[in-house]
């Protein structure tokens, strides 16, 4: 029993952290928000092998697993990376292993982007950027190239998330699996995307908390930093607790996915539920500590906060995951 990360994993985290600190500054995130199509670190992450990390070496990847991906995904959240990294890491191994090798290679190389639509999910994210959609329609799992998907574009509260209601046709689809196998693979991809979102959310929370702590140290009212007020201290202590007790569940779920634990879905739901709750809670505390300045779109906080709101509901809302936990532990039908 060992519940920690290896030196290699920490090094990979640091690599990703450095790339993002350089190439995914708040200015970059804001430029995406403002539809200015800035250069994002998508290509750099691909070069560093991050997008394809969960592919085998034969598939052109790093042969790593979800525990290796955990900290990089958290870093992506910390930087509010406006790119489908959760989707790439969740989907590529399945895509590559079932006849989608060509797409997998392109995505891992940073030359294409993938979005995911499983079951009756109403929305797809990265709708404008995606070159291909991994779709499960209840019968088969297939790759649908962008041009064959009808997208009714929507406006997300998080303007960096391009979302749409999709309508799929079979035209030009690369079928990866059918029947029971498709269902199983779709469930796996869903769990991996939910896990990735949980990790990403924890990264968002870390950043929102950090912003609030810095602000509380700097902002002087009544002759002293507001962070010396007990009410502010306790609010931020509670935010930290929410985050710190969400993180281990995400790491544990990463391990369960990596080793194909039979309770994988339960563990993923625990991770996603608590990460979503924590992120919404931390967002609220951070906003309250910032006061009016945090309530503007000139300040960076909202870039993280709105992503948190959106991701908390993506790949299963809190109620969805809570229900899934309930069915697992309460002997329900």
């Amino acid at each position, binding site marked *: 029993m060992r519940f920690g990360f290896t030196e290699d994993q920490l090094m990979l985290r640091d690599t990703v952290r450095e790339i993002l600190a350089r190439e995914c500054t708040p200015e970059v995130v804001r430029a995406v928000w403002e539809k200015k199509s800035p250069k994002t670190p998508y290509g750099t992450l691909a070069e560093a092998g991050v997008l394809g990390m969960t592919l085998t070496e034969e598939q052109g990847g790093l042969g790593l697993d979800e525990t290796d991906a955990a900290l990089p995904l958290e870093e992506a959240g910390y930087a509010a990376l406006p790119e489908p990294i959760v989707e790439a890491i969740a989907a590529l191994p399945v895509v590559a292993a079932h006849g989608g090798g060509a797409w997998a290679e392109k995505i891992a190389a940073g030359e294409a982007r993938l979005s995911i639509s499983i079951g009756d999910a109403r929305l797809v994210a990265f709708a404008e950027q995606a070159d291909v959609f991994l779709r499960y329609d209840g019968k088969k799992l297939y790759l649908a190239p962008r041009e064959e998907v009808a997208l009714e574009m929507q406006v997300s*509260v998080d303007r960096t998330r391009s979302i749409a209601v999709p309508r799929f046709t079979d035209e030009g689809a690369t079928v990866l699996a059918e029947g029971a196998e498709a269902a199983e693979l779709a469930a796996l991809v869903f769990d991996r995307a939910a896990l990735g979102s949980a990790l990403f959310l924890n990264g968002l929370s870390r950043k929102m908390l950090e912003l609030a702590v810095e602000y509380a140290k700097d902002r002087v009212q009544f002759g002293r930093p507001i962070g010396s007020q007990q009410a502010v201290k306790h609010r931020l202590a509670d935010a930290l607790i929410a985050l710190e007790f969400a993180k281990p569940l995400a790491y544990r779920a990463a391990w369960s996915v990596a080793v194909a634990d039979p309770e994988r879905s339960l563990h993923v739901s625990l991770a996603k539920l608590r990460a979503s709750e924590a992120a919404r809670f931390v967002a609220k505390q951070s906003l*309250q500590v910032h006061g009016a300045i945090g*309530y*503007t779109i000139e300040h960076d906080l909202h870039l993280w906060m709105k992503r948190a709101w959106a991701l908390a*509901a993506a790949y299963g809302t809190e109620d969805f995951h809570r229900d899934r936990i309930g069915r697992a532990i309460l002997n329900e039908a």
Partner: protein
Amino acid sequence: MDLRFTEKEEAFRAECRAWLEANVPKEPLPSGDTAEGFALHVEWEKKLFEARWAVVSWPEEYGGRGASLFEWLIFEEEYYRAGAPNRVTQNGIFLLAPTIFEFGTEEQKKRILRPMAAAEHLWAQGWSEPNAGSDLASLKSTARRVEGGWRLTGQKTWCTRGAFCDSAFGLFRTDPTQERHKGLTYFLFPLKGEGVTVRGVDRLDGDLGFAEVFLEDVFVPDRDVLGEVNKGWEVAMATTSSERGLSLRSPGRFMATASRLVDLYKRYRETCDPALRKEVIDAYAAAEAYRWYTFGTVTRMSQGGEIGADSSMNKVYWSEMDVRTHEAALAMIGDRLELDEGSPAAEDHASWLKGFQFALAGPIYAGTNEIQRNIIAERVLGLPRK
């Protein structure tokens, strides 16, 4: 105790309801915190004023109906029940006007109140400065005595709808030898003209709800001083109490929200998490509690009582209730909660997202809830300041 409304009150309600039913726009107006929405809201306000519904509790000479506080509550219930537009005049009529009624000269009343109510002259508040938020007394803007008036210099911020309004009100330091609460004066000042720069600031929900106002030696005549010179703090406190308390947040507003939540639940109860039933009932109960608390306050005020520190309890209560109610709605909407205005698939749900973001401001503005809780603890419960 008699909780029946009088015949007169019921007649007032009926008249009000009938007018609103006939006149409230069928489709919601665009947000009043955008340029085009603001214009439409002003149009609506003018209509409201013409029918004498703009300021029902004001004396008739200023365009009101001399209505009682209870009638005002009835009006508010009907107004929100009808889904009528948000009031872009509210900073004037709810925050400034009570102060003018109490401290203004006859000339000020005559000159200012009717155009304010008629939405001919629009008012923004100018309380905060970049380094004076919760700590309002640390403000730095100054007013310098000159012939016939004052020259104002400084920066005000978070001026609600300041980008669209004509004038604002706020405090300026008139006695530089004094500190904090002393030596301040309450001014009415222009948002247009020489020396004034107004920069709109986008609010969390993307609307241009705020403005920063930069003043450089802006002339303000003596007649635009409200109350005594160097007594601005005392004058302002009357207004902040209105802001937190009764007038800005009438129960009608929250009852309408609770009622919309009930309707939303009826649409989703077959599919949403069963635990949301509890949230819906609790939201309804919370709004009812607020309603009856307010009726109690109004009863006391009608008998000459003061609202006092109660306004702090009021503010903490409604602002946190409003967040919870909207959170329950978003949970019901599920993964579609992120659909913002302009989303074809949003149905009517984007208004909950908008409302949620608006609700998040509640615990912050008009004195953060942290400040309010200090006030409650110290002034109501008598706990020691230090």
